[in-house]
């Protein structure tokens, strides 16, 4: 908007300059505001040469055009690069990715024609479990930090710790999970170990997102709640959280995309094997029961890694491409949903 109107203004000035027959007239046309201001000003104040202003506006207009052109080229390059990556991945995996049999069949060990059914289910199951564990924890932490934490060194230490954790390499989180959950707790390679490792990976990001969302709620909303005789907790739950909800939901879905595509933290925690799943089984101790959280569970991202590093099936390139395409499509969908839901909710809240 601002760019556009600046352009327009520059064009108008140009047009006026072109129209005016004498340089004096053009100066007057373009510099009306300035001359009026100098007339109204104190007598003897330095007057501004309107010619110079016209020259400056012209020059600034040209500069603005060059800058806009450069920025547009950079933006176009980035978009083209992203589009190329996405199109290449989806394109090379399309044949498998849109094949129902590939999406539902279990992977095969040695022969061609294996699918990614269990991996697909495991990815979503792990994601849901991770969110179920990490959302309440992050909400609590963020609310405490924004609303209740006193300003002191402990609070600052916690905030710094969260920042550090959010940039922790995921392989480190994975190895920590391996030591703590897999070995120390003796849970083995299991969905539970994986979900907890992903929770550690996810919490710092979620806390920051929710913190920012809560801090962005205007102060007067908080005041309005308190002035109605609500307690601080009621104000937080009934006024701040609803106001911050669009931003929180957007943040949660975006972080879900990150968790969904995570491989390194899961290789050592949820394991690299996917037992065939029997969806009719509800025996929670059976490794073939899909809902059993103590069974090993390879996800889509781990499957890509594994099949490329130690796969022996003859169609491993096709399987890997297909899996990658599914992964990218899912993450794209998460992002689109996040934008859609966030926009819908904030429109509902602001009545536009």
């Amino acid at each position, binding site marked *: 908007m601002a760019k556009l109107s600046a352009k327009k203004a520059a064009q108008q000035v140009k047009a006026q300059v072109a129209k005016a027959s004498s340089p004096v007239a053009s100066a007057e046309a373009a510099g009306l505001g300035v001359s009026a201001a100098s007339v109204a000003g104190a007598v003897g104040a330095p007057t501004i040469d309107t010619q110079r202003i016209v020259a400056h506006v012209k020059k600034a207009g040209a500069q603005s055009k060059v800058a806009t052109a450069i920025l547009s080229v950079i933006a176009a390059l980035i978009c083209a690069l992203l589009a190329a990556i996405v199109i290449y991945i989806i394109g090379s995996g399309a044949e498998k990715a849109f094949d129902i049999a590939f999406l539902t069949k279990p992977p095969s060990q040695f022969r061609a024609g294996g699918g990614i059914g269990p991996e697909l289910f495991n990815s979503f199951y792990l994601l849901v479990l991770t969110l179920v564990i990490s959302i309440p924890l992050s909400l609590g932490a963020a609310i405490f930090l924004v609303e209740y934490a*006193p*300003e002191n060194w402990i609070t600052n230490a916690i905030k710094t710790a969260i920042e550090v954790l959010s940039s922790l390499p995921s392989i480190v989180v994975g190895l920590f999970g391996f030591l703590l959950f897999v070995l120390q707790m003796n849970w083995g390679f299991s969905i539970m170990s994986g979900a907890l490792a992903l929770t550690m990976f996810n919490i710092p990001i979620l806390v920051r997102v929710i913190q920012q969302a809560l801090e962005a709620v*205007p102060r*007067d*909303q908080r*005041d*309005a709640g*308190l*002035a*109605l*005789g*609500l*307690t*601080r907790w*009621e104000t937080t739950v*009934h*006024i701040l959280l*609803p*106001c911050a909800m669009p931003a929180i939901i957007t943040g949660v879905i975006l972080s879900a995309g990150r968790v969904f595509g995570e491989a390194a933290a899961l290789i050592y925690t949820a394991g690299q094997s996917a037992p065939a799943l029997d969806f009719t089984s509800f025996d929670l101790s059976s490794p073939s029961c899909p809902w059993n959280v103590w069974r090993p569970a390879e996800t889509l991202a781990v499957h890509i890694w594994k099949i490329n590093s130690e796969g022996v099936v003859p169609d491993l390139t096709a399987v890997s491409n297909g899996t990658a395409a599914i992964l990218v499509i899912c993450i794209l969908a998460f992002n689109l949903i996040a934008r859609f839901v966030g926009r819908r909710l904030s429109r509902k*809240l*602001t*009545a*536009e």
Partner: protein
Amino acid sequence: MPVKSVPSQTTTEAPAKIAQSARIDEPVRLIDRTAMLAEADAISHYAAPVDRTRPAKMSVSGLNLHYGDFHALKDVSLDIPEHQVTALIGPSGCGKSTFLRTLNRMNDLIPSCRVEGSVTLDGVDAYHDLDAALLRCRVGMVFQHPNPFPMSVYDNVAYGPRAHGIRKRAELDEIVERSLRDAAVWDELKDRLDANGCGLSGGQAQRLCIARALAISPEVLLMDEATSALDPISTAKVEDLVVSLKERYTIVMVTHNMLQATRTAQYTAFFLMGEMVEAGSTKQIFEDPHDERTGDYVSGRFG
């Protein structure tokens, strides 16, 4: 709406100019203080003397307030008379809003804020013997900028009563209608109860906020420059509202608009640099200020 009168030296040539340039019914009142007071006398409760027999609804004594190292209120003592409108006037940064916010403990949440002295509501210590949330139920507040919740008009007004346990639809309907009527906005909004409160005009939103505050039947209503973000027509509506509400509520308002104080308030307190310089009937403060600084301020010589 002019915020203050212009110093008297300019009054001689100014009226003619204004009469020429703008269609204003009483151009004189914009600048001439005597005329301003006369007009205020005629149209308002200005002349009504403070009823000294009424007990003080709220009483503040020896109030000192610090924000960290900054001494924001210095030994302020003031009685708020019941069922009267009390105006707090003074230049920006003089502590009048801070004072207002101590009356319902809205400063409690500011970590560096320290309050000493006593504030009582009906003789009960508001800081030690009353719960903050309970105090705020009895001492409601309207803010400078309209701050409706991002929900429907109905839900905005019903918010307080619901939070305090009223769930029956019929009861809520009644409260919503009564509050909106009291806030003089029922006729404009009765067909738009489902509309989002954030989509209203500034004046309607502010009266909605007043209705929201009235819905929990407070005893005292604090208004923090409640009309400063409104156009003159909406301001007039809110002022009329204040005058009509004083029968049932005790009102304390912070205002930068001297005319507003003369039109609506029986009682006026003048603040300057954290001190309460002078308090008295509005007529006395504006016509016969005892303190020179009050005189300078109300006649527009500074601030």
